[in-house]
């Protein structure tokens, strides 16, 4: 009567929860409603995707040929308008033969921006690099020295103008915003009131009214006989506008620093400015880098408004390129899509960077 060991039947393996099929089951056919949505969506996709692909690529006309474009109307896009006009769209009214200059200047400025995004480069020499690149940018754009033909600012346009306006206004707005943010938290009533009024006034009005002011009222503000270039006036307007928004972001960072830090600095006998410079600001500014990045994105998009006060940045240059040309005007929507894609590429890249840097800066506080 020897007991023989008879194993019980093994349990069946648990349902697979990882891999492609389980993912599809959970995420596309989770329940009846989800399944219906999936089927309908896939149906729409099958129906519309070929139409869209044909319009975008397969039936589109890439050669600058208006007759072919007219023939393809409705079924295929006319990218020929871009082939024909891209230099006018990207560089605006800049003299045609000299367009290598804005090209080089833009590449240098974008390269500088990309370099400034790398944390290993956040060193004092980066400031020198900024000064050098900006000097190079304005030398190339303006000319007049080194044998470069002078180009007045009203001929500047397109992408170089967009990038320059956005970059410079943020760079100038940054120190202003730090001062205003500190002023808003100051205990001195007169300074605090002034900063509050400035921030709330600017944040309460649309950018376009600030630009109108720059374009119509600044000339009146200057002493008689002195006239300031419209580009500079608009730059000042955008800077003052950006600074008010950025001041609120910086203030948010300042508020996030525990009070103990300020008290510790006071205990050590640091003066107000020493405490801000060595204790408070380094911590607060690290916190607000993503916020400043987002502000940069919105200012980058907002530069498109300067076209309303007749500066021909990307949006304005496109209108300039097409509005007066009866042959190509019917294909404006393709040109719009082209510059929308340019804006999208810049803004999307910057927002990804902003997310990444946010994660990196939070590394010490998250597990």
């Amino acid at each position, binding site marked *: 009567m020897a007991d023989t060991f008879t194993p019980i039947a093994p349990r069946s393996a648990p349902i697979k929860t990882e891999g492609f099929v389980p993912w599809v089951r959970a995420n596309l056919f989770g*329940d009846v409603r989800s399944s219906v949505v999936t089927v309908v969506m896939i149906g729409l996709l099958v129906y519309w995707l070929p139409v869209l692909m044909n319009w975008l690529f397969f039936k589109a006309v890439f050669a600058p040929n208006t007759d072919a474009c007219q023939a393809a109307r409705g079924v295929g896009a006319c990218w020929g308008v871009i082939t024909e006009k891209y230099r006018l769209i990207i560089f605006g009214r800049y003299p045609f033969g000299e367009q290598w200059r804005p090209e080089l200047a833009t590449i240098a400025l974008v390269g500088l921006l990309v370099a400034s995004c790398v944390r290993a480069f956040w060193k004092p020499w980066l400031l020198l690099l900024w000064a050098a690149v900006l000097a190079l940018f304005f030398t190339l754009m303006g000319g007049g020295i080194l044998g470069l033909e002078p180009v007045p600012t009203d001929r500047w346009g397109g992408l170089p103008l967009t990038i320059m306006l956005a970059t410079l206004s943020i760079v100038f707005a940054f120190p202003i915003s730090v001062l205003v943010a500190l002023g808003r938290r100051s205990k001195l009533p*007169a300074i605090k009131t002034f900063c509050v009024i400035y921030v709330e006034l600017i944040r309460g009005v*649309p950018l*376009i009214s600030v630009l109108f002011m720059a374009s119509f009222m600044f000339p*009146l503000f200057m002493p008689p006989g002195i006239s300031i270039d419209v580009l500079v006036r608009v730059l000042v307007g955008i800077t003052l506008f950006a600074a008010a928004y950025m001041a609120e972001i910086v203030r948010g960072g300042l508020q996030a620093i525990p009070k103990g830090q300020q008290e510790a600095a006071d205990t050590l006998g640091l003066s107000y400015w020493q405490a801000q410079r060595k204790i408070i600001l380094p911590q607060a500014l690290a916190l607000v880098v993503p916020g400043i990045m987002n502000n940069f994105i919105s200012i980058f*998009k907002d530069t498109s408004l300067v*076209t309303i006060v007749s500066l021909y940045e990307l949006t304005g240059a496109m209108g300039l390129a097409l509005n007066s040309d009866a042959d190509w005007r019917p294909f404006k*929507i393709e040109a719009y899509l082209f510059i929308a894609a340019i804006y999208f590429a810049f803004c999307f890249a910057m927002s990804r960077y902003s997310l990444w840097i946010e994660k990196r800066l939070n590394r010490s506080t998250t597990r």
Partner: protein
Amino acid sequence: MNPRQPPPPRREWSLRSRAVRGVLYQVIALGVIGFVIWFLAHNTMENMRVRGIQSGFDFLTGPAGFDIGERLIPYESIDPYWKAFLVGVANTLRVAIIGIVLTTLLGTALGIGRFSHNAIVRGLCYGYVELFRNVPILLQLLMWYLLLTEALPDPGSPLTLGGLVFLSKGGISFPAPEWAAGHAWAVLGALAGVCAAWFYGRRAKVRFDATGDAPHKLLPQLGLVLGFAVVGWAVGGAPNEWRMPTSGEVAVTGGGEVTPEFMAVLLGLTLYTAAFVAEVVRAGIQSVPLGQVEAARALGLPRGNQMKLVILPQALRVIIPPMTNQYLNLTKNSSLAVAIGYPDVVSIANTAINQTGRAVECITIIMAVYLTTSLATSGFMNWYNKRSAIKER
């Protein structure tokens, strides 16, 4: 041994004292600001004198001399400037208010969609948000305007919905009730209905607090408002005249109208701001601790109710302040309507500047209008925020 008395604080007039330096800084700051303001004002006066520009708001009572295509209040080109500005303000408010309502609905739906169990819905919502918030609003407005005025059929041969609604390059035409005294009564009735609904809601709450069972709220309240409106309409003589649009040889005439400019501004603002609202809603929902969701699930609440009863009410507290910012942004962005010719307040002011040269006055009016709207909106939202904040003991 006597403990030594601490020396009395010395109040001396010295640059080393914080208080004295504070006063000094402020005096300097005020002096600089005052000087800058004086300098700018002086230059402006001087320039105006030299160039012979007249100043003052007296031009507001002079005839405007230009026509406005879209108006909510009666206006003709012989009317004074202040009335033209009023028309512009009404147009701005119209597009802003309708835009805020639509963008809230769309944005909330998109934000909740980011948490859908269906991967396609999640992906679509994500794609929408990234696509629309990374392209400048001005560009989007121009694109919508171009699409509405180029891609649609000519007004002579419009798209139609049962011969009642017509869509063409000239805009949308639809049947509208002929305004009569009865409609005023209906509006009064609806207002009375809102009051009744409010009282009903209060009673329902009292009952809920006392007994714990929740009476239906939304349906009876809607019924009250509608019922009172119908009663008012009947009291007013039940007018049922309709203005019908008719499709003619060259254009659609009659009926209520929406211009392509208005549609483009509304579409552009709504779709753009909805992307931001969706992000606000998503961040709000993510801020609700996971334990709350798990608790709701443990109680056996169905998914819809988890969202409605547990997550959204808590997320709302986080959502309201940034949502206020988005509403303000939408209102301020409506100023871009000037680029496509919708006669909002900026557009009117622009025309007025070109006609009269009173740039300072007109820009002041624009800023005053937007400042007032912004302050009013943020005031209302602050009140609402306080109401929905956590009531702590």
